[in-house]
């Protein structure tokens, strides 16, 4: 996968400026799923600042559920959750598929919106 210029594209998709981040860690402190992430939200933003494409291979970008807790609380209005969504978009627009519909447990009972939301976030 061609990673060149991924930062520019992520900035364009998100409409946010990752360079405003001063690494206070607020986003990671308030994230309700941080403990399930391989790298934390503020580290994701740092890797974007450094232009390190390793961030695209992190599992954490698929763990974020866009709850907007970090977006509302970031003191620099970086919108970390929105940048994370743009990282997912970068991958999805290049064919990533993170959802196996045949592996979904108890699908019949879950509200339909769970499947719609998962499809939107995890498939292209």
């Amino acid at each position, binding site marked *: 996968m061609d990673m060149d210029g991924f930062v520019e594209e992520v900035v364009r998709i998100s409409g946010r400026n990752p360079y405003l981040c001063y690494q206070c860690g607020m986003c990671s402190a308030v994230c309700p799923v941080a403990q399930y992430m391989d790298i934390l939200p503020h580290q994701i933003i740092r890797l974007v600042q450094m232009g390190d494409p390793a961030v695209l291979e992190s599992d954490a970008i698929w763990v974020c559920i866009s709850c907007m807790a970090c977006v509302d609380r970031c003191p620099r209005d970086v919108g970390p959750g929105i940048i994370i969504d743009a990282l997912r978009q970068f991958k999805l627009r290049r064919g990533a598929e993170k959802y196996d519909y045949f592996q979904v447990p108890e699908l019949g009972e879950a509200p339909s919106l769970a499947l*719609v939301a998962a499809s939107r976030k995890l498939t292209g």
Partner: protein
Amino acid sequence: MAKALLYYPGCSVKRNSPWYEKSALAVLEALGYRVKELDKWYCCGATISLAADDVIRHLGAIRSLIQAEKEGEALGTNEMLTVCPMCYNVLARVNNLLKRDREKLETAARYLRDENLEKYSLSTRVIHVVQVLHREREKLGELVKRRLDGVRVAAYYGCTLVRPKDVAVDNPESPRVMEEILRSVGIETVEYPFKTLCCGAYHSVYRKNIAVANSGLILTDAAARGADIMVTVCPLCHYNLELAYRSMARKPGIRVMYLTDLLAYVMGLDDALSPETRSFLDKLREARRELVATPGGGNS
């Protein structure tokens, strides 16, 4: 003339939570509202597309906003009612986005012309049932037929009613609207720190352990602080909380139900309650009444 609301149901209320819809509509009717379901509505998409260059994923929401605008004229209202907070969140955010970004509004209008849809004039107001209940809370109090003395209730908000800030129905850091609604019908509420912690959302169909852990924490903490019932207004939160409950070896003594189920019960709207909810509340009320009636009861 009765106050009117245009009702946008959404997929999950229709498919998965018919009793929630029933109790919510019954309570609104008792308050004097005429609730008219939209003749046609489209899937909101469950989560808003966050990509700045996206228009296509907003179209379902825009079609529904236009439909509400059209039907609202005849009904004399611009309020589009949602009971599912995920729908509320997407529809309200798309509505705000179109107000800020006229270029997107034009792009959508050009596309929707092929469907013979008029350009959206931005007049629809998306509201959630909690907002209606809160503004009518005094009247709710007057409609109480049963008391639930001694029963303690924890209100769970989750994410979509309070985040992001521009669509929050109350102070996002410390919302109180649901507690105020409950207290207006004489129900005691319980404070706990996790009322806006994410339940795990769609992780229940992706990484189930995350939904079970987060929802489990929310439930056990509220139960430990003495809550008998946790009320929610979201079909997905409701599902996740029950999923967590089912997975627990030691069950906390707390029951999950919809806010409007509890309201319908105290208002005596029994036809709007599932038999299970009704009998659970009957039993709980009896048990608490005995406790209150026995001197020194509850101290054992």
